[in-house]
């Protein structure tokens, strides 16, 4: 197991956001976490990347307990998150943003190689390499966030709502890229509201409701599950 989350709960002040969540991600997989607004998807991501401390339970990465590890040290171990929405550095150029993604790395040759790969994956970013991140469109910023996370050459890539606020064509494109990244050997944990796309692409998925995991299975299973269909796919 690459990532094992066992019975994790998390508090925001007095409000309990996660109630004993358990999930696993195996090497080479795309795992999706779907759920409605406020179900705790992003909170789960924050717990995994270490931005929010967890109250109980444990998070294990490559078999080692990282529950108490600082966020930046988790990045060094190969766990990198692309934050949702506008989580890029608006005043830095596209290249500087990508460079920040490689902040923990010292192998210049490898970084240059990965930069070429990211610019290859996202030609739009190559076109705008000298532009400040804040001047990019929403879709481009999203791509920049994903590309920047890839620059750390993560073992596990955490994607928080990569399709948020994007036009249908762009959503398709982003998910194609996620699949491509995965095929190139990066494990992906994906949080999504767009359940249709997420389930179609994921090997396995979990359904999150008010801070609890209520269902899990392969992407195909959940895609045809009547309850999931009704609640998340908009078909009765």
């Amino acid at each position, binding site marked *: 197991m690459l990532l094992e989350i066992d019975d994790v709960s998390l508090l925001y002040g007095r409000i309990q956001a996660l109630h004993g969540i358990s999930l696993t991600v195996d090497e080479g997989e795309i795992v999706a976490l779907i759920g409605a607004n406020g179900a705790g998807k992003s909170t789960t991501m924050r717990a995994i990347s270490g931005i929010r401390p967890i109250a109980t339970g444990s998070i294990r990465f490559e078999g080692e307990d990282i529950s108490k590890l600082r966020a930046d040290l988790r990045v060094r171990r190969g766990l990198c998150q692309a934050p949702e929405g506008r989580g890029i*550095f608006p005043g830095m150029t596209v290249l500087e943003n990508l460079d920040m993604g490689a902040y923990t790395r010292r192998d210049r040759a490898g970084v240059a190689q990965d930069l070429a790969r990211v610019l290859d994956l996202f030609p739009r970013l190559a076109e705008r390499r000298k532009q400040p991140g804040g001047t990019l469109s929403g879709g481009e910023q999203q791509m920049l966030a994903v590309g920047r996370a890839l620059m750390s050459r993560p073992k596990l890539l955490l994607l928080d709502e990569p399709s948020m606020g994007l036009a249908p064509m762009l959503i398709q494109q982003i998910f194609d890229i996620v699949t491509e990244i995965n095929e190139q050997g990066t494990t992906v944990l994906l949080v999504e509201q767009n359940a249709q796309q997420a389930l179609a692409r994921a090997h396995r998925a979990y359904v999150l409701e008010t801070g609890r995991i209520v269902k899990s299975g392969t992407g195909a299973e959940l895609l045809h599950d009547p309850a999931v269909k009704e609640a998340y796919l908009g078909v009765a």
Partner: protein
Amino acid sequence: MTTVLERVRSGREAAGERWRGAPRWVRWVLLAAVIAFFYALPNKEFYQYLGPIPTPGANFTQVMFTVSIYVLLAVGLNIVVGFAGLLDLGYFGFFAVGAYTVAVLTSPSSNIKTLWPWLLVVPLAIALTMLSGVMLGTPTLRLRGDYLAIVTLGFAEMIRIAAVSSDFLKGQRGFNQIPHPPGKYADGKPFFGVLDARPYYWLVLTLIIMVVIGVRNLTHSRVGRAWISIREDEDAAQLMGVPTFKFKLWAFASGAAIAGLAGALFAGKQNFVNSQNFELLNSIIILAAVIFGGSGNIVGAIVGGGLVAYMIERFRGIELFGVELYEYRFLIFGLVLVIMMIFRPEGLIPNRRRAAEFKDRRKEVIVGE
């Protein structure tokens, strides 16, 4: 009105582009000329030809010394506020720590009477201020947002009240006969005397240049990148593997060290330190000066610190309707700041990045509506 604003803005941007586009040697010559000008400035033979620039109501050389201290402080505070984006409302507190360290360890009126020479105490003062920065930062920099502003505000007041009321720090009576920096002319007269402020000014100016070179190198390194990423988005910085707490503390402590140096220089020149030197208002003025000049930009901080300190002194001796303008200095200063914040919130000479961040935030506000 917006069109006028846009035109002014684009004009300023064009000036910046011209500067960046100019050949390297042109920039070096201009820079050398500016530095030479400021070295020459406190000489009467020079400044008497400068028309309205010398201050009518105060000794211009003394004023320039004060201005230089403010510039040094602005450069230091700019690291904290401008680069790392930490709101420090009590920066003058560190200046006080530096000045009092020198006073306590060198002055004959001090209780401990160590009577050490000034030069020996300066590194100690810097180290101690840095340590106080680390002590203050360690618990507070783990938190985000306004906590730091409140704690630093409290810190500066604590130092001031301790200075006023503790016997060890001598309150209003203060410390006298603080020794001057060492150095003699060929004829045996001390280089750093009582009457002539020029040597002190030159000393501070030289140190400013050294500090600016150091800070510039720092900002172009991994440290600088980490600071900027923290300022732009602390969560994202952490997600990229930046140890944010460590770098915030580093910024806070280096800023404090520079203020400690300024305090030590001030004490060495003034010869006398008491509790009245460290009003809270000074912290606010320096912060306002950095923002006014353009926080995040070293040149902006220098211009802001220099202009604000100079203008305040320039108001002395100017009468308007029978009242000295100096009395209204803070009213005028406040008005200028308000106008600035409306028309140019990124400051006089902003950092290009900073300007982009402001634009981004403006966009966000519009989206939020």
